[in-house]
């Protein structure tokens, strides 16, 4: 009998396997439960493939979307619908960056303890960080052109404005655009665009840290700045800037001078500082990753290297990453991670958002900040930004379009308006003229909504 008793241990082994299996499943449930519960096959929370509960509002409680068992109910305001379409998302899920997709489990109100249990079946009310007024202002200011406007609070990380054009009306169900259509494309998150002169802020960072004698740097700009033989070796400028120093070169956005500075610091340092500025890797916004920029700095081609240093050649930047870089300069070299969902805790307001780590030395950031102020004072005119403590850099990027792309990037440092921003208008013309007013208008709109 004793033998049989010993052999019976095999039953214990089976029981152990059973419990181990449940353990594995329990682990998976904790890890993936939210994803599972929000799977479109769950008819508790989906009606005809669309989420049937939850409400999306802007930061001030303006209702943008209400999900009901009868379908999505968007705001009645057409302009607001199109201005927030890329942030809120569409019923078909063509916009992968929409709140409907990203904050699905928050909308449903899933948590590991209660699952999707919801006595009212109304779902949760999630508050986005964007400001309806700012988005509307940005949409209006873009005035039908292709472009993007992104503004975030560089202290808390809250994205207060995010508009991408061309856009669409998510409430218009007969919308016939295919999935690849540019209407669904979010330029801010997925775009890769030639940065033009805004990139000089990265080159400047390299110069500040690598060139000890930068204060004695001068360049005599003749407007053509011939490097070698032939037309294709020129670093042309809009006009002859004459003799400029480093600060002046940035204020005037002198291509010739920045070409020389780029050659001075060299390809390796350029690569290094582009990476440090976070422009070559994706930025994570609530679980979605932006496109990653790409740059090439050849060390055997001075002309191409020079152009790369002034934001042309093969340079491609993601607008969101550029905005975060502005946040880095504003915040003493350490940017805060951008987010789209308003957290309920006021703790975040006190402590600031999650840091993305150090991009720049404090001194470097401070010097860049002072140079960006200088740009505003010397070039763009402080009177154009009445009431705003503005720091910025414009960009006029030569792209394929008839007119150059207009850029305006930078930040404000007002007590009640600590915003870093990026504005890009395709074919907009000169950056300071076309894009700067958009930034001003949006930031001013932010002040109006009782912040």
């Amino acid at each position, binding site marked *: 009998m004793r033998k049989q008793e010993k052999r019976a241990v*095999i039953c214990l082994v089976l029981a152990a396997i059973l419990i181990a299996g449940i353990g594995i499943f329990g682990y998976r449930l904790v890890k993936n439960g939210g994803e599972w519960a929000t799977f479109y096959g769950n008819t508790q929370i989906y009606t005809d493939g669309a989420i049937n509960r939850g409400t999306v509002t802007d930061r001030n409680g303006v209702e943008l979307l209400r999900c009901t068992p009868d379908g999505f109910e968007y705001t009645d305001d057409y302009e607001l619908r199109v201005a927030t379409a890329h942030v809120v998302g569409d019923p078909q899920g063509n916009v992968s960056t929409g709140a409907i997709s990203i904050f699905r489990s928050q909308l449903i109100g899933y948590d590991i303890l209660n699952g999707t*249990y919801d006595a009212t079946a109304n779902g949760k009310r999630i508050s986005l960080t964007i400001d309806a007024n700012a988005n509307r202002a940005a949409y209006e200011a873009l005035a039908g052109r292709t472009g993007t406007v992104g503004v975030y609070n560089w202290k808390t990380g809250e994205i207060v404005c995010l508009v991408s054009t061309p856009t669409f009306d998510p409430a218009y169900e007969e919308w016939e655009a295919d999935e690849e259509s540019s209407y669904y494309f979010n330029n801010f998150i997925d775009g890769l665009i030639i940065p033009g002169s805004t990139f000089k802020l990265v080159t400047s960072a390299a110069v500040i840290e690598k060139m000890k004698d930068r204060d004695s740097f001068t360049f005599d700009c003749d407007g053509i700045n011939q490097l070698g033989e032939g037309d294709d070796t020129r670093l042309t400028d809009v006009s002859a800037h004459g003799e400029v120093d480093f600060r002046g070169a940035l204020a005037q956005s002198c291509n010739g001078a920045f070409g020389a500075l780029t050659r001075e610091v060299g390809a390796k340092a350029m690569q290094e500082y582009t990476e440090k500025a976070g422009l070559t890797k994706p930025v994570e916004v609530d679980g979605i990753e932006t496109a990653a920029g790409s740059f090439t700095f050849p060390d055997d081609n001075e002309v191409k290297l020079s152009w790369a240093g002034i934001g042309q050649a093969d340079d491609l930047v993601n607008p969101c990453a550029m905005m975060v870089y502005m946040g880095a300069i504003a915040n003493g070299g350490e940017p805060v991670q951008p987010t789209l969902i308003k957290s309920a805790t006021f703790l975040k307001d006190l402590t600031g958002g999650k840091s993305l780590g150090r991009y720049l030395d404090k001194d470097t950031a401070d010097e860049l900040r002072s140079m960006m102020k200088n740009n505003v004072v010397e070039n763009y005119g402080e009177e154009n930004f009445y009431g705003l403590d503005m720091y910025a850099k414009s960009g006029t990027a030569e792209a394929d379009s008839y007119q150059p792309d207009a850029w305006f990037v930078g930040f404000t440092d007002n007590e009640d308006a600590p915003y870093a921003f990026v504005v890009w208008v395709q074919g907009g013309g000169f950056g300071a003229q076309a894009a700067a007013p958009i930034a001003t208008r949006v930031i001013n709109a932010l002040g109006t909504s009782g912040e």
Partner: protein
Amino acid sequence: MVLAAYILLIAIVSLLTTRATPEIWGYYMVEEGGGFPITHWENVIGRSRSADINIPLTTVSNNHALLIRRDEDKWMVKDLGSQNGTKVNGYRLDPDKRYIISPGDQIDMGGVISTITPPSIEETRNNRFMRRLDKEPVAPWKILLAITIFQLLTIVQLVLGMGEEITASALLCIALLCVVMWAYVMFFHITGSRGFEMEMIAFFLSTINLAVTASSDPGSVVKEFIALLIGLALMIFMCFYMRDLNRTRKVKPVLIGLSIAALLINLIFGTAQYGATNWIRIGDNLSVQPSELVKLAFILIGAGTLEELYDRKNTVIYAAFSLFCLGCLALMSDFGTALIFFATYLVVSFLRSGDFSRFVLTGVAAGAMGLIVLKFKPYIASRFNAWGHVWEPEFMDDLGYQQTRTMSFGAGGGMLGLGAGNGSLKYIGASNTDLVFGFVMEEWGFIIAVLLVLCIATLSVFAVMHIVAGRSTFYTILACSAATMFLVQTMLNVFGAIDLFPLTGVTFPFVSTGGTSLLTSWAMLAYFKAADMRRNAGPAVGKEE
């Protein structure tokens, strides 16, 4: 919710902490070697260290002879074909023949003389005293009350969750289950039984069963309840019947015949459901699953007394019968059940022979056969392809449909559940049987779903823990193979639904909707009761002073 955890925890802890002190049936006195207490009815005497009575002398064979208790002071000896033979009072025993001996007779094994002495009255009294000191099984009243409250809450939840859809008869059945439960416990408590944990677990699981059925198909709760009553009655009957070992053994050939007949009838008249032809329709709205009932017989046929285990013929019959069952199940395309039978067969033959290499070999051979099956049954092979990949777009809405829904709706239940009657998984096919784990997760929460699994595991662990005091290997094997069957069935059911294993479509013992399955689960409980050697554990062991 808290209540459920409480009920199960008490029962589980009680089952796992109470232990039986072995009863002493006599002493085996070896000349110049002292005495060995005989704590089993069936003993192997030999040199082997695992022999029950171990005589470490080279003249004694490894497994020399069997010593089996027949009556108050009658013992039976059987030589197992030992090298040097066995003599009783100088008379040489023929190998493989039984001889009745009495205490005092001189047994000579390879020159070692020994005798059997009955335990003295004083010793008997001490032993009884010791057994009385054993931790008593937990009193059933608190658990009973808890389950009753749980059942009432279930009724309330169903009414709240389903409103008009719930039928009065479904609710009445849950209430009646409560009455039956009290009646059962009271009756057997009066007759002196004390161990009710297993029944409590089964009543609890059955409550969930009725709730699941009420939520998914209110019309068939009555049928489910009747099946439960039949199962309960069958269990009580089996408990009494199995008290007499010889009577139980004799019924085996009858069961073999009945099982074969049932399976053949199934093969000829069976109707298909979800790919497997394992149903027989009787009349318009009654159908039974003969393979479920054959499970009961299969376990009993696999069990054997120690004497039978040394009998080759018995083993051959069992193997042949197993093969027949597996063949029939394969023809019915019921591979899930076939797998359960096979796993049970493997464990039982391992228990019987202890031959690990054969255990592995048989497993490998079965694996090879499985591959052949995959080749000829493409729909099974495709299930294997989906296994582990159900969330991939290719399978999500196709072969992984049931699994992804199980996990999605199940996760939707969180830890605490949406409440009985509030689930939506019930609109998916086979949700209350094959996917019942997800069903319970959604309506009752993950914690209760896990507790259900723990219940099954506990029953099994209990079976293993309590056989040390077993009377005969017959009961040991019964409990172990019933445990194996429960465990494997639960594994296939749960793991299949949550994509840890290909979906095979078997039922969760007690919990899955299905009259035959519920009936069988209850009847199987008798096998555990029969192995419960605690004092006054229940109807299967009789009352002790």
